[in-house]
């Protein structure tokens, strides 16, 4: 057997063929893991978007929010397994006087910047504000909608922000 050309040993004969096999397995599992990560990331994002829309739909149930009690009652109807907060800010009819609340990364890192901002009219729920410390890699969705609020017996447009994260 040993004198036959091409024969090294019972394992040595197969050794060259192991290289493409290992290479193939390496490529397959790398691509598989990459695809799985993308799947997991997108699934989380879709879940957050769906919950954000669901929370916003409940918050917009009343076309005009009459007072803080009414706002709180609407907040209590929200039922989601994600962490969320909602708050109202001014929307001046004179666009030159409108202020924007820049919900950038620095602002979201400190919950107190948003919670105690002068521009927030109402906010809820109180419990979740303590958990609102969104780091750079936190997956979050921020939605904004116009809505009416009864202020000093006038129904005026305001902005409703809904933040959902996990």
């Amino acid at each position, binding site marked *: 057997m040993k004198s036959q050309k091409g024969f090294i040993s019972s394992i040595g004969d197969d050794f060259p063929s192991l290289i493409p096999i290992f290479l*193939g397995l390496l490529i397959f599992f790398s691509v598989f893991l990459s*695809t799985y990560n*993308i799947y997991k990331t997108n699934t989380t994002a879709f879940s957050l978007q769906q919950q954000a829309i669901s929370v916003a739909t409940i918050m917009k149930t009343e076309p005009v929010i009459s007072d803080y009690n009414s706002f709180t009652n609407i907040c209590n109807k929200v039922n989601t397994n994600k962490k969320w907060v909602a708050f109202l800010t001014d929307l001046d009819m004179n*666009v030159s006087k409108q202020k924007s609340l820049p919900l950038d990364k620095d602002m979201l890192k400190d919950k107190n910047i948003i919670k105690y901002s002068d521009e927030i009219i109402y906010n809820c729920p109180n419990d979740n504000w303590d958990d609102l410390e969104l780091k750079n890699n936190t997956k979050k969705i921020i939605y904004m*909608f116009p809505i009416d609020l009864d202020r000093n017996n006038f129904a005026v447009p305001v902005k409703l922000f809904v933040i959902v994260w996990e």
Partner: protein
Amino acid sequence: MELIKLKKNKAQAAITDALFFLTIIMVLAIMLFKVSATYGQRVKTASTNLYFKEYTSSVLKTIFFSEIPLNDKLDISSTEETDYLMTAIKSDYFSDQKIGASEDINTMSQAGENFKDGDIAKYNLYHIIKATMNPLPNYDYLFYLFDPENPSNSFKFFMIKITTFNLREGTGKEKYTLTGDQNGAEYYLCNPYSYDNIRSIMYNVSDIYSSSIPLRFIFDDIHQNSTSNVIDLRSTFTIWPANNSINASVLTDPNNRLNCKLYESENYT
């Protein structure tokens, strides 16, 4: 003899099998890459569509349920008299079957000394829409009140906002394309001849999000020419990304029969 010798070269057959295996793995990897690149695109698009659909619906509700100062000051806290916007609009329509002081719906007085009281409802409608859309500067929009039963006098109110861009020739690979930064916005009031004229300018705009609700208006028919003094209008609010925007010259081109007039413009710089 040579054939027998070849048959004894066991390593070659194993290599061939391994290369077949590698080929199959590469095909599977390419398919997985393709799936991962496109996974969730439809759901992402559907989620985005749902958000903007909800936003346009919220804008319409906000318009209808807001109270307005019955003057041109836009400050409800300092005014003596207020009313719901839709009530003011319907009251304005009741007397003369038009909204605003002018016979032309593409005309509206500006705030100040020359402001006409007949434009109060129209003026506040214009500014509420502008205010609710101001948080989304990257989107253009239009709003109209439309009578589908009256082809000759279909539109009762029509406003459209167009973002303007500083166009410049690109560099490098983009040399032969026009790129631009947002320069500002222009707001037009229009009196289109027909609904088809609107459809023709919106035909090339992609990513359109729209909400529409019916409204019932009552008018005072002092001549008692019609059998009914009720009219069913449709209010529609439509938004689209500013980078898909319509060129402003399209709105003022007489051939397009939109009959638009520039009401005001803003400069972002």
